[in-house]
């Protein structure tokens, strides 16, 4: 369990808990030969937040995370954790737990032995191995060789490895890859559980909807460039919301709305999909024109549309 970081003021007897950046990426750049994989990317991750790190395949997410973990040397810029380069962390496994795309387990070794090795290097008691196996629901398969695991089981083992030393920060690269719908649900619950414990989580994905229910904010990368870094509310605020309405006078309502600069699409029968007007505005207009409304529902903004729009805009800029 992670306790929040704070400062105790003896004069007032109060504990002030302040959000601080635990991850700082500054002008981070990486070129592989002629290929510019990451292009002057800067963002921060505040303590105790869950941040989605998004972008299409090849956007530079994994390269950025590997630079943060000291596995790849940046061409320019810096990536720090708690103000230090990863290699300068005193006990890195106790500060950061990471799951990268590859599980990193030797296929001929059992899951339990894989974790025993990590427990030895991380200097945590052997009993912790059983705890994390239980947490990721791999107890039954603990003595099977990792080479016989499904991709989903390997992802779970990767999470168990990351959680073994009880780190305050988690860096997860595409953890939902290979998980079935039940597994994705399980992962979502686990991330929520970790967030409730006050841990900082940076989770990458190429599907916004996959992490939308869990994250506080998103960092979107495309072609190595930072496209957006904002909260989900900020991200969806600019998106056009739609209202679905059922009315026996659908055509009349559509015409009335069109006269008020709203756009109504008749979906067939008595159904309309309206953009450019809120449900309150639609209700008021309908009442003024004595048009009955049987049902009105606001559609959630389509996250994938937003994501695709942002990344497509970046691609247009790049060409």
């Amino acid at each position: 369990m992670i306790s929040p970081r704070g400062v105790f003021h003896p004069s007032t007897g109060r504990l002030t808990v302040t959000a601080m950046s635990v991850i700082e990426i500054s002008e981070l750049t990486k070129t592989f030969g002629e290929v510019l994989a990451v292009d002057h990317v800067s963002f921060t991750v505040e303590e105790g937040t869950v941040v989605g790190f998004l972008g299409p395949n090849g956007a530079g997410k994994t390269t950025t995370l590997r630079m943060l973990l000291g596995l790849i040397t940046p061409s320019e810029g810096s990536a720090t954790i708690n103000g230090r380069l990863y290699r300068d962390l005193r006990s890195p496994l106790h500060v950061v737990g990471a799951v990268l795309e590859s599980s990193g387990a030797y296929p001929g070794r059992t899951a339990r032995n894989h974790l025993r090795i990590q427990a030895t290097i991380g200097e945590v008691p052997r009993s912790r191995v059983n705890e994390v196996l239980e947490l990721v629901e791999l107890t039954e398969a603990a003595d099977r060789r990792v080479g016989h695991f499904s991709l989903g089981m390997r992802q779970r083992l990767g999470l168990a490895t990351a959680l073994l030393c009880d780190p305050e920060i988690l860096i997860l690269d595409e953890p939902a890859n290979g998980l079935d719908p039940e597994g994705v649900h399980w992962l979502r619950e686990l991330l929520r559980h970790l967030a409730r414990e006050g841990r900082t989580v940076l989770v990458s994905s190429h599907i916004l909807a996959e992490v939308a229910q869990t994250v506080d904010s998103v960092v979107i990368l495309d072609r190595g460039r930072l496209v957006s870094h904002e909260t989900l509310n900020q991200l969806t605020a600019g998106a056009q919301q739609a209202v679905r309405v059922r009315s026996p006078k659908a055509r009349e309502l559509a015409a009335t709305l069109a006269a008020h600069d709203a756009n109504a699409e008749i979906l067939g029968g008595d159904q309309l999909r309206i953009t450019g007007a809120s449900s309150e505005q639609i209700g008021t207009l309908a009442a003024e024109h004595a048009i009955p409304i049987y049902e009105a529902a606001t559609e959630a903004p389509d996250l994938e549309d937003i994501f695709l729009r942002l990344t497509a805009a970046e691609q247009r800029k790049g060409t």
Partner: protein
Amino acid sequence: MTRLIRTELLKLRTIRLTYGLLATVAALTALFATLEASRAGTAGTGVAPISTASGLSTVTTVTGFAMLIAAVLGAIVASGEFRHASATLTYQATPHRERVLAAKVSVSAAVGAFFGLLAGVIATGVGLLFASGDGTHFALSTATLLGHIGGAICGAAALAALGAALGSLVRSQLAAVIGIFVWGIVIESLIGGLFTSVRAYLPYTAATTLAGAKLGNAAFGPAHGEAGSAGPLPFIAALALLAALAVAVSVLAARTTVKRDIA
């Protein structure tokens, strides 16, 4: 460093490959020692009777193949991390990669030493078994036999350390393993056969002479048994040569490939 060494030892203890290589060392040493003992004293083989010091030592020093296997073990310890992408986890746990390299070289040397001990004991056991079957006294003293076993331990440890350094430098497991066999079986035989004056300085040959093998006795192919005019290096010189090689290759690896990106 102790923690890293414990971790590397645990890694080796928890894979079947280690036990497979150990079994290979035991089986091949027993096989070659038995073959040499069977040939001893037979006309045309060039192997003296087992009742003589020369004949018995030909059998008790058949530990060269175990040394090559020890080098292979070292190469696998280091390069296997890249083959199975476990280097990612290893370097996350220990970002100072040169420490990981030092731990791998040390652990490989320790396990290699065990391979050498096993091979030395088996070869000596087979030699004494055949010698006692002849109903004669043993032509080599206990001290000499223990010296052969000690030499096998040192030679296998040194080659295992060299193998680990090489595995770190090359990073490709297949290339490292093939390279070790090609070097030991083909290249050293060729160089040793053509230039007998440098034979004593070749790493595999130097390791085998540590264990008491006559110069050229551990060589494969046409160079086998061709001692030439030069003698083996003194024990300390051979050991220092192998240690220097392992350190040099380790330093080269630490300054080049070990620093490379793990993408």
